[in-house]
């Protein structure tokens, strides 16, 4: 009994496991994208012809995609807000909206790839295009994974089974925001610079 002093529990963090685990996962994702971004930056700074190649990208599509992804970040926060209030109907709606926005992003991206390929810009067309397809492809895979997660949660919310583990919305949100942040840097690096 006398042992339940401060010293006994002192340095055990109070965060839920899931949240800490998700953050650890993101911490390993940071160097993954960081490594490629760093490679892109240094090779672009030391290379030639990158800016000209980037002129061929469709800047409008990317701009719309930026708006889409930022908005989807907002909607998943709203889903989390709703889940905290145990309003699972609203949670489902916002999650559904997030999924739709994510699919919209992928659709636009697919259209963008198609136009570029039809103009003859393939992954093999040079180092800029290698990085363009490599980085957006890697990011796109993360978007796909995020959509699947959000979709599962949406189904659970719609079926009403989300109530026991509503914190999962927050975890999915953390991942989704991370994917969003990656895009926040990819957009200027590829399209604006």
């Amino acid at each position, binding site marked *: 009994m006398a042992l339940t002093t401060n010293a006994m529990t002192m340095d055990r963090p109070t965060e839920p*496991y899931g949240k800490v685990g998700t953050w*650890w996962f993101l911490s390993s994702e940071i160097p993954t994208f960081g490594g490629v971004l760093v490679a892109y930056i240094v090779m672009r700074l030391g290379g030639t012809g990158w800016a000209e190649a980037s002129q061929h990208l469709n800047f409008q599509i990317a701009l719309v995609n930026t708006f889409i992804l930022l908005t989807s970040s907002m909607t998943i926060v709203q889903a989390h807000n709703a889940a905290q209030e145990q309003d699972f109907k609203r949670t489902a709606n916002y999650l559904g909206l997030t999924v739709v926005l994510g699919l919209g992003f992928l659709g636009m991206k697919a259209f963008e790839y198609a136009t570029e390929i039809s103009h003859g810009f393939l992954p093999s067309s040079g180092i800029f295009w290698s990085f363009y397809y490599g980085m957006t492809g890697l990011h796109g895979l993360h978007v796909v994974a995020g959509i699947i997660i959000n979709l599962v949660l949406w189904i659970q919310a719609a079926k009403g089974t989300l109530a026991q583990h509503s914190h999962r919305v927050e975890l999915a949100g953390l991942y989704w925001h991370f994917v969003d942040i990656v895009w926040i840097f990819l957009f200027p690096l590829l399209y604006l610079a």
Partner: protein
Amino acid sequence: MNEIATDAHAHSDNRSFVSRYVFSTDHKVIAKQYLSLSLFWALLGAGSAYLIRWQIAHPDTEAFGWGYIDPSVYNQLVTMHGTIMVFFVAMPLLLAAFGNFLIPLMVGARDMAFPRLNMLSVWIFALASIVLFASFFMPGGAAAAGWTGYPPLSAKNEYTGGGYGMDLWLLALALEFASFLLGGINFLTTAINMRAPGMTLMRLPVLVWMQLIAAVVFMLSVGPTIAGAILLLLDRNLGTTFYAPDGGGDPLLWQHLFWFFGHPEVYVILLPGLGITLEIIAVFARKPIFAYRPIIYASIIAGFLSFIVWAHHQYLSGMDPRLAMPFSVTTIIISVPFALVIFSIIATLWRSSMVFTTPMLFAVGTLGVFIFGGLTGIFNGSAAVDIYIHDTYFVVAHFHYTLISNVFFAGFGAIYFWFPKMFGRMMNETLGKIHFWLTFAFFNLIFGPMHLVGLGGMMRRIANPTQYDFLKPVEPLNIFITLMAILLILAQIVFVINFFWSLFAGKVAAANPWQANTLEWTTSSPPPHENFAETPVVYRGAYEYSLPGQSEDWLPQNLDLGDNAKAAAH
């Protein structure tokens, strides 16, 4: 949730065979799955080592039990030997098997934080194993670009003569890394958030700390290599030019992406090995680990430093030569925290009361061998000496001394030490001691002379040293080393016999056969499904051996002595 858990305890375990042994979420079963996979791979790794050594000693003759070794097959063997030993033996054995088994037991948790994630990670690893195994049978054979897979050699099939073997190799690595990422998340969350009451960070067994640091180092370093592997796959299959200089890429990019992880990886393997050594030495020296806190701080510092030394693998790669100096300084400075750890272990032995059981022999063996490996590392770290010894057998001998000390010696020590806890039976001591002395002798007879071969200038990965006049003086050594290597492999038969015999017929183990303090020994051998009948409460650090004023020379972490004694044992 709690109700279900206590229910499972009250009644007999009624899970089906499949959910108990195959798709199990129990960290102990998962640990055994990792253990068996890594031992399986160790067989293949040893087989490849035998063929490599045969070819070096008797080039272009028929290897006993195999036949003629084609030069391209030789390159595949070299590549797969490195890949298997580092990624499919050392990591699953030291990290996954013992980390999984011991972290929850040592911190007093019922299981990992995310048991299903844990199961996923072992099955991803199994998938990686299948992919890597399948790569042997691809047309053109397995990957043949060295375990470092430097492009352009690895980027185009026409350079190696290989085919899908290389793609599968990359895929297997990516899957393996994904598996260990999930494992790492589990380790970290479990050890930080699921500690039993009273188990403060500074009361954690040092092995848990080492596993934690290793997991952090792994998770924060592996990303660039995963990305690099994906880029290499794209280069190979979609025609991108990340590593192709004629398309604006740069082969050096891969080396940076790879070694940014590749060097920390060394510490990922090394730290758990040191942790195991420390655990075993404390128990059998009957003495607290000398300088517990400084050891942990030093290991954390070493973990950090390991991120800023990666380019020492690239001194001669065409990297900017000015970079070699700062990286040489950081590389040699990393010896400082390890010096502290080593000195502390030696200080632990001072005025101790040592019992030389098999695990203790292996632990002291690790220490002795690792010191040698650490000291030869200074030569490699010095950029100037590296000009001559880079890519020679001196380097090969060095990293076998550091890594094998941790995989072979610490790994075997851990198996002998925790075997009773894992399987409920003791291993045979006589066979164990024979195994140790044979292993220790042959190991040193292989890799000691190998340094001299390296000083003679013999390059790594050459299939036929007899083609070179300047290597004539080392030929007798090569033949001797090969003979010793074969004997070392044969000596492991003693272990295999001991392992399987003990598994079924060994002496039944008590809960705490070694009279050790840490929490895993407070539960039965083997522990029940949820580890502890009730959550243990921790009153002290893990190494209160030979505490003055106690009648016993050990004091379990969870033993309540009452208030007065608590003040004494801080």
